[in-house]
């Protein structure tokens, strides 16, 4: 296993440089909201999602209701479902670690494992498990460090919560580049802005997410026709 981890390390390097600072920012925000490193540690282990953990800081701050949290998480993490779909073949008959591999299928882990082949001399299972495990460790280390050091940094961390906005802005650009049809992205801007103006910041999100889903389902015949042409 140690050989496998050593050989897989270089594949996980880009994630190391991403997860430590992003996890750190999460830890800093979390401790500013009044939750210590133990919370950060367990959230990084059991949630293991950057978008989710940035969101949860604001959900904890307002003491959101459980059904609200569940619906929001479902819509936010809907994309993981489709990562999984495309990994069914790769993870087929891979052995006992399969259920851990699925648990650790983050955006970044997916990006590596769906494109890279295992290096010489280690099995597929060992490669996939090593990359997933290393990424998980980076995320935990970043989060705990942020929660521990965040409160004693010699400079003010005010404004570090912008990291969530920046992350979503980056994801918008990536989606924009990946799709020819930009109408879904534009619908995703217009409907929530209307909802925000009408309902206000506290109540707009879930109606907006549902409205976007319904409108997209209504546009399905049109979009599918355009796909074929």
């Amino acid at each position, binding site marked *: 296993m140690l050989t496998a981890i050593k050989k897989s390390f270089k594949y996980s390097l880009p994630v190391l440089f991403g997860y430590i600072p992003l996890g750190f920012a999460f830890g800093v925000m979390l401790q500013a909201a009044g939750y210590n490193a133990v919370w950060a540690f367990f959230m990084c282990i059991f*949630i293991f999602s950057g978008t989710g953990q940035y969101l949860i800081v604001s959900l904890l701050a307002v*003491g959101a209701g459980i059904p609200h949290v569940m619906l929001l998480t479902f819509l936010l993490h809907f994309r993981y479902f489709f990562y*999984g779909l495309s990994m069914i073949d790769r993870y087929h008959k891979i052995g006992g670690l399969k259920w851990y591999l699925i648990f650790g299928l983050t955006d970044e882990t997916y990006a590596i494992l769906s494109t890279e082949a295992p290096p010489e001399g280690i099995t597929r299972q060992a490669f996939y498990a090593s990359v997933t495990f290393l990424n998980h460790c980076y995320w935990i280390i970043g989060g705990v460090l942020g929660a521990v050091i965040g409160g004693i940094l010699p400079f003010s961390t*005010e*404004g570090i919560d912008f990291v969530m906005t*920046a992350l*979503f*802005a980056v994801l918008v650009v990536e989606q924009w580049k990946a799709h020819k049809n930009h109408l879904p992205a534009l619908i995703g801007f217009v409907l929530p802005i209307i909802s925000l103006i009408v309902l206000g910041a506290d109540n707009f999100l879930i109606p907006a997410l549902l409205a*976007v889903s319904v409108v997209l389902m209504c546009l399905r015949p049109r979009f599918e026709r355009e796909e074929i042409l």
Partner: protein
Amino acid sequence: MSDFMKSIGIVAAMALVTAATRYAPFLFFGRGKEPAKWIKYLGKFLPPALISVLLIYCVSTVNFLGGSHGIPELICIAVTVALHFWKGNVLLSIGVSTVLYMVLVQTIF
């Protein structure tokens, strides 16, 4: 219910639903078993729309009518988007814009 238990509940709810979205395809679809067309359709068109909604969510508490009028937010989102179209480096785009935002809100705004 104490705040402590409430927080545990929120964390557990997010952890459970997150795991469920990851496990569902492996539980419901096997090898060679194609998911329904409408699921594939949503898989293609829903993510870009939902991500846009969440970007709006990130700035939903910003007061555009008073205070700093959302100027630091708009500047920094523009910087993130421009950098990411130009270089396509996630860490660079997020790092530069977040540090810029921290400087702006701590010094000018």
